[in-house]
């Protein structure tokens, strides 16, 4: 296979000639950079990438990538991407979507792509708002948020993206922050390498309609204390001085201080992204400020059969022993009779 060759790209190779039209300061710019970087690390020839999106600010993404791209309709990116990948499993298929696109109108395709475990990479730009339509609340907006369609505050409970993903049988879930390009790049690479539906929730800032919504956890000042970067096989440690960690207290997670109450590094939970039973991963994905640090990194990454290869294998298996090899065979199969 061609992919085995080592393709030497720089991020610039993935920049299209189209003018990037996001607002200055929008988190989307950083995501674009990180993705362009990540692609250089995959050793996949450029023509094998297909970027599919729905509608939203984030969904303009494919225009800025010098790859195959399809800017779809609102909410349908996962379905279109599923078709692309099923039709041609050789492609590296990316589904670029927003919290509105994936979780409001596109919720159904989102959970079904995940259930089928089709091998696509979903980057969900979560700015907790509808950016492109100028500021209405989304299914991830915090309860109470005042927006143009909730002038007195929303009365809706938001989805927790990770929980929904795993609840829909998701086998890969990761979370990152737009501005952390290094972490993001690494996560996008992992997502791409994972066989099956990979969902990456990107905490993304919309400077215009929901500015700073992630600052309380991701702000420069506080992020070390309010986020934890999970790494498979590593103890769950965080804090400015790496002084905090997570342990299991009965069936719940608990934040502890190292050194206090005799707690040391080896008491901490060790992250197992590959554990099939999602119990702890659910809890990790659901950690919210102020009770917990918000988890970044790859929270769940479990191997499993993928839809696209299963489809191909089934066809190949059947074709092997099949009597019908071409249309003429089919036409003349079964009950036929001759008129002379």
């Amino acid at each position, binding site marked *: 296979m061609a992919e085995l060759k080592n393709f030497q790209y720089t991020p610039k190779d993935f920049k*299209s000639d*189209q003018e990037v039209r996001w607002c200055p300061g929008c988190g989307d710019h950083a995501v674009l950079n990180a993705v362009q970087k990540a692609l250089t690390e995959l050793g996949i*020839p*450029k*023509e*094998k990438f*297909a970027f*599919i999106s729905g*509608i939203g600010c984030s969904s303009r993404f*494919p*225009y800025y*990538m*010098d*790859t*195959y*791209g*399809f*800017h*779809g*309709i609102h909410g*349908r990116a996962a*379905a*279109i*991407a*599923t*078709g*692309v*990948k*099923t*039709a*041609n499993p*050789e*492609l590296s298929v990316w589904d670029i979507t927003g919290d509105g696109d994936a979780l409001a109108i596109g919720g*159904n*395709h989102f959970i*079904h792509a995940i259930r089928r475990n089709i091998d696509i990479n979903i980057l969900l730009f979560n700015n907790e708002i509808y950016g492109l339509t100028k500021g209405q609340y989304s299914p991830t907006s915090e309860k109470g948020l005042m927006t143009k369609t909730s002038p007195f505050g929303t009365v809706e409970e938001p989805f927790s993206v990770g929980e929904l993903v795993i609840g829909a049988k998701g086998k890969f879930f990761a979370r990152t922050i737009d501005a952390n390009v290094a972490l993001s790049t690494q996560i996008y690479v992992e997502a791409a390498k994972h066989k099956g539906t990979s969902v990456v929730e990107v905490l993304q800032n919309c400077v215009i309609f929901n500015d700073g919504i992630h600052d309380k956890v991701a702000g420069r000042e506080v992020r070390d204390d309010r986020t934890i970067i999970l790494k498979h096989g590593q103890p769950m440690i965080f804090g400015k001085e790496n002084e905090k960690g997570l342990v299991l207290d009965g069936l719940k997670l608990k934040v502890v201080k190292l050194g206090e109450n005799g707690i040391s590094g080896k008491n901490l939970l060790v992250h197992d992204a590959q554990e099939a039973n999602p119990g702890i991963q659910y809890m990790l994905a659901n950690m919210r400020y102020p009770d917990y640090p918000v988890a970044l990194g790859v929270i769940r990454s479990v191997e499993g059969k993928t839809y696209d290869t299963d*489809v191909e294998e*089934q*066809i190949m298996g*059947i*074709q092997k022993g*099949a*009597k*019908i*090899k*071409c*249309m*003429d065979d*089919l*036409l*003349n199969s*079964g*009950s*036929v*009779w*001759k*008129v*002379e």
Partner: protein
Amino acid sequence: MTKNSQVIEREEVVIRFSGDSGDGMQLTGTLFSDTAALFGNDLSTFPDYPAEIRAPQGTVGGVSGFQVHLGHSEINTPGDYADVLVAMNPAAVKANAKWVKQGGTIIFDKDNFTDKNIEKAGYKSDPVSEEKLETYNVIAAPISSMVKEALKDFGLDPKSVLRTKNMFALGMVYWLFDRKLKYTEQYFDKKFARNPEIAESNKVALRAGYYYAETIEALNPVIKIEPAQIAKGTYRNISGNAATAWGIIAAAEKAGLKVFIGSYPITPATGILEELAARKDLGVKSLQAEDEIAGICTALGASFAGNLAVTSTSGPGLALKSEAIGLAVMAELPLVVINVQRGGPSTGLPTKTEQADLMQALYGRNGECPVVVIAASTPSDCFIYAFEAAKIAVEHMTPVLLLTDGYLANGSEPWKIPSMKDLPKINPPFADKKEIPFLPYKRDCETLARSWAIPGTPGLEHRIGGLEKTLKGTVSYIPENHEMMVKFRADKVAKVADNIPDLKIWGEESGDLLVVGWGGTKGYLMTAVRELQSEGYKVGLAHFNYINPMPKNVNDAFSKFRKIVVAELNMGQFADYLRMKYQDFKYAQINKVQGLPFTIKELKEKCIKLLEEK
């Protein structure tokens, strides 16, 4: 088997099998048709079943029917009225009595005419007298008792015994029409190879019915229908849904593409998905999507990736697909959207036929959003039009909407099997290296189609999408560019007219009345026009398969008749469309919205009325 009865020959005959949903009438009808087809009759069949899976036993709502029309001459419809009605219970009589020809034969299972069943069917006492069937040839056979008797040595449970009632009835019908049992017997041997007892019991019941009919001389004289004069070749029976699926696979083979179908089940279109799902031997990828929107969107994705992509549905599903069809129009990707029309609006009459999705097919999308619309007109020509739909879609880089209907989908007829070498080649307008830098919206001068650059091809990377674009694929809000692109897309569809056949007038080429139809009513309209002609009327038939664009000679063809009448199973959608397109003619209308096909009788009456008016 010797025959004592007299035998007469007839040109054609219509038989209707009917009973409870659980009585196996669909199989019975199919076996009868197969036997007739193998014998060489021309025929046409139509199943008619309730929307419920098993509606309450014994009620009119639960009656399932299968009609077969066979003949020595050309048969174009399943027939209006039956010569023979097989009615497994009183409800079947209730549902069908008015569809039996005056003086026809009615076979029923006397054992099933209990007071309870009679009441369930809505009769007070005796169905025969209540329906005034005294002058009919009513054969009240004790079918249940007879099969019990015939199978008493089998040691089967009573349920399995009674399940062979339909074969008993079929045996009787075979006798009535002087048919051989061989094909049906072989069917059971094959079907129940692993369960020879069941095979045998069915065969015994079949024979028992046959001999019973002979013994009581159920019909005198016995009717014989000689084989039809049909073209030499190899034949098979095919339903509209199977033919549609096969047309797609054939087109893919001719285009060198793989088939991808993304669909969501819906009556009466599901058979297309089912047929394609079964064709993994031919490499078909079928994706049963989570809904209709995902159905078309996965298909569109597959088209982008270079497959021959199809999505199939019925009316309500087409409504859901409207937005994505718009995207296909903007993306200018090939896509075949198959809509098997059923009774509407909304859920309507989901198992019945209708032609009321025409306007939706033509206009059911936001913006100026033209697609090619074509319609199949017989169960077997679904193959041709599915093939055509795929060919146009690929060669013109456009979504094509193929309309069939419940009648075509479920109906079946013998079909002369084509040879793949006789089908035209399909040439996808693949982009190639010479086109680097690739301009996604650059067009072929003749067809105005853009070229198709398949992901995976080095150097042809490009972006498309639903926003208005320039030639280069850049998003553009420039007013003049938008107007230009709107016109390009319209012209591209209009130019398909260069590649479609002229409208043919069937019957008289000019005269007093031109009957105009489209889609699935063709058999009915042909039969009516043929009969009118034979009665001396100057009548022609213009039947449309290409709806948008229209053939180029319509004006010309229409102008040769004194009157035009548009007959369709809706409130006049095609008539209205013709008013828009060919405003100079006046259009009379024949419409029916009952979930049923036309009857020849009503068509003729209405035509004659028009012919006789000044």
